[in-house]
């Protein structure tokens, strides 16, 4: 008996298209899929990043949910379209917080410098990036505000 084979490239292109929409150039989409790895977390509480990890890339959530754990019970939820660890990746700073899955299945694309260079000029990705950075910034501000009180 022979195994059914998953074609990773097609699977990745489909998942990316689902999040970024059809407007993205097909050639760029294929290049991003070739240069990124599809990672499926299949349990809750799995680590995406741990505080202290070096930011070699970031996770682009294609399906499922994760959270940033900021201590003292503070957390910030991340879902489809979230770019996990984008702030630290752009600043080239070690991660300050843990990021863990909260859904029983999370499908993500790990994007490093090669993938980012291709995506940074894609409009739909730029929109996602802006909203992700702002959301994460306000969430961290809340944590800082709480600690001041």
């Amino acid at each position, binding site marked *: *008996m*022979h*195994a*059914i*084979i*998953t*074609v*990773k*490239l*097609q*699977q990745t292109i*489909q998942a990316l298209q689902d999040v970024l929409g059809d407007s993205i150039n097909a050639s760029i989409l294929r290049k991003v*899929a*070739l*240069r*990124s*790895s599809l*990672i*499926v*977390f*299949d*349990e809750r509480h*799995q*680590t*995406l*990043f741990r505080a202290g*990890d*070096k*930011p*070699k*890339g970031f*996770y682009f959530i294609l399906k499922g949910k994760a959270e940033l754990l900021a201590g003292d019970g503070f957390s910030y939820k991340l879902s489809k379209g979230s770019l996990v660890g984008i702030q630290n990746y752009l600043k080239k700073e070690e991660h300050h917080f843990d990021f863990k899955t909260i859904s029983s299945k999370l499908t993500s694309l*790990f994007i*490093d*410098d090669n993938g980012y260079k291709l995506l940074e000029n894609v409009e739909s990705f730029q929109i996602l990036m802006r909203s992700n950075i702002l959301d994460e910034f306000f969430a961290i501000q809340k944590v800082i505000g709480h600690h001041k009180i």
Partner: protein
Amino acid sequence: MATKQITPNVPAHCAECLNRTKSAFKNLDNPDLDEVSKRKSCVFFRKGQVMMQEGARPQGVYCIYSGKAKLFKRGNEGKEQIMRLITDGGLIGYRSILSDEPLGASIVALEDTHVCYIPKTSFLEVIESNPKFSLNVLKISCNELGEAGKIITSLAQKNVRERLAEVLLLLGATFGHTKEGYLDISLTREELANMIGTATESAIRLLSELSSEGLITLKGRKIALVDPIALKERAAIFD
């Protein structure tokens, strides 16, 4: 989810896998193989496709059924240093899972590659329950550590010419030769340069020198080792 029958030749059960004898799964008994086979899935990577990336946390291991891959780290200026080439039976991603650390290197398919994906939980279950398997993984890890040590020594103590000769011999020993006598692996000149830690131009010049001295022959990307004994001397390998 995109699934497609690409080639009919990857067996669904690990017991039927012809490459099992080359892999960490070689001594596993049928109940363990049943368990792994139930949980594994088969994945196809195109030539040039990233399989795993430095900094990510893999959620399983890949065991190569057919194909070749390179494992490399990127330097500060983005230049690759190829640490290892992996072929049939090779295990990828296990060290990151065992150490619970992000991957320390990236892996890219050098040709169309079929792999079996074993989820982290299944891999860890077999490690915990099967001492033979644990020992196999330990042996593989020790071998890889030894190979990494050789690369460090070679980079530190040998000149580029010696390193090139050494790498060509290593490629021959790892991947074998085609019927026509060429190395059975297609590497770009840049990849060859990245294996020996030099510029592409230097690698091209040195290959051409070895060719004009009659130690190798070149045909496009293809390389044939004509005089392995002389190459061994060039590589400063004395045993």
